[in-house]
């Protein structure tokens, strides 16, 4: 910024005060959850606000074992990882073809995929549920993986298409001259070149899948994912706040770690996807 008038700088300092309070409120929930998760239930009731004095890990053990969050965690890891890999494979194939290859109905197919963004899961809840019943996919992890892929796919295809359409098409032609098949071009040229977009999509889709409740409530009814487990924990142990917050810390930990390490990619990915394409 250029030289600012004194008055203007003072104004910014004044604005910084409420902004700092808002910032504190944004990190407060994690502090709240962690602080209370370390208390005993009695300790929490006696002193809700105080810092934990005699930290205990009992709540984490209970949440993991007795409340079965450990099992749910495994379900979430498998379905999230499976869906993200499938999303990346399918969307990079489609994005490569849509952006770089010339074939009939190309534009139309792109529009169909983009238009399906208009169909959120709520709008097709009943017939979607009946479709997965008909395909015998209810209560299976593979069913949830496929469902996640179907619902998070259009945005990924859009991003990959936008990304690849900025690369020169000569890349494909040169590789073909060298005798590479189109599948080899995808694997050896397009995937490595698409790495920045793939990383961003990988992180974003991990967030979406891990945090989802609606689709997993519908598809995995007997088993649970960790977020559905948290929702149930809230209902079953209403009076045991330390146990609930311990579960929350466990369920949120992977996402918080991802955010801390990949903050730049997440932030840039969202900004680029929204504004610049």
């Amino acid at each position: 910024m250029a030289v600012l008038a004194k008055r203007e700088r003072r104004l910014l300092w004044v604005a910084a005060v409420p902004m700092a309070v808002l910032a504190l409120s944004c990190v407060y929930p994690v502090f709240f959850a962690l602080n209370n998760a370390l208390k005993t239930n009695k300790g929490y009731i006696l002193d809700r606000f105080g810092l934990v004095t005699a930290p205990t890990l009992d709540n984490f053990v209970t949440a993991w074992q007795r409340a079965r969050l450990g099992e749910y965690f495994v379900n979430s890891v498998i379905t999230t990882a499976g869906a993200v890999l499938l999303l990346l494979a399918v969307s990079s194939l489609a994005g490569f073809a849509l952006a770089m290859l010339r074939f009939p109905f190309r534009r139309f197919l792109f529009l169909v995929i983009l238009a399906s963004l208009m169909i959120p899961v709520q709008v097709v809840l009943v017939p979607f549920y009946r479709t997965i019943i008909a395909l015998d996919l209810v209560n299976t992890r593979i069913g949830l993986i496929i469902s996640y892929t179907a619902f998070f796919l259009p945005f990924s295809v859009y991003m990959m298409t936008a990304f690849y359409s900025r690369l020169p098409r000569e890349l494909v032609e040169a590789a073909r001259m060298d005798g590479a098949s189109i599948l080899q071009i995808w694997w050896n040229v397009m995937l490595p070149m698409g790495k920045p977009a793939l990383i961003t999509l990988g992180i974003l889709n991990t967030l979406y899948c891990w945090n989802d409740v609606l689709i997993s409530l519908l598809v995995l009814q007997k088993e649970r994912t960790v977020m559905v487990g948290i929702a149930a924990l809230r209902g079953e142990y209403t009076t045991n706040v330390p146990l609930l917050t311990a579960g929350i810390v466990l369920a949120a930990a992977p996402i918080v770690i991802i955010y801390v390490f990949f903050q730049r990619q997440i932030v840039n990915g969202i900004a680029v996807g929204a504004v610049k394409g």
Partner: protein
Amino acid sequence: MGSKAERRIGLLFVLPAIMLVGLFRLFPLAWGFVLSFTDSNGFGRSSFVGFDNYVAIAHDPVFRDSIENTLILIATLPVWVMLPLLLAILIHQGVPGGRIFRAVYFFPAVLSTVIIGSIFNVVLRFDGSLNAFLKAVGLVPVDWLGNGATALASLIAVQLWATFGMSLLIFMAGLSTVSTELIEAARLDGARPLQIWIHVIVPALRPIIEFVAVVTTIGVLTSMFGLIYVLTAGGPGTATTLPEFLIWLEQGKMNQPGYAAAISMVLFVILGGLAYVQIRIMSRNANL
């Protein structure tokens, strides 16, 4: 180019994406459309009933409440757009600590709505932390989630708090494209900060403001399920029931899928108009 092999393989490469989208989104949409005109009970037999389901939902007080709640929610939209815009401009202008603010403001948006809802449930319920605090400082406790008016307001406030960082990021990206010379020139002409904001920055950001407004509207209509599910479960009564949650409640009653499908179609029409605008912006950006 455009050899025979390329034509075939191009189609083949798009096929998995088209199949997934077709089978799990387009086909269910068509099925739901048909279903909404039937009295299907979920066990075989069903017959065509015309617009009966639509007439029935028009007279359904729960549906009407959910639409009313949606309208109240939409009335708050200017705040959803202006708050992050204001904060983005302040950060862009170099507010002290701006880079930290940017990262921290976005943080709640990466947490699941279930996580946020569960924490705020502990904070906001009648015997919760906020009331304990209010009592401690000598104020009257409020039944934030148990009282109709405050429950909807609490729900809206929590969702706004959880998502404003997302819009802020989009505005920040937009601001980085606004010419600094323009701002400098206005400053040299003696424009005061507020004048610069209103006459230079906001007009330059107009397309992005439109985009955020559309995306936020779609967001409040489709992404509050998790929060409603754990924070208020739609209640008390129907005070926090939105159409997307109502569809969930109706699909749980497996004996009248036609009725639930009709509600879905109404939501689809509302969303369709909004999404059409969004898709036009996005397809312009992909420069195919």
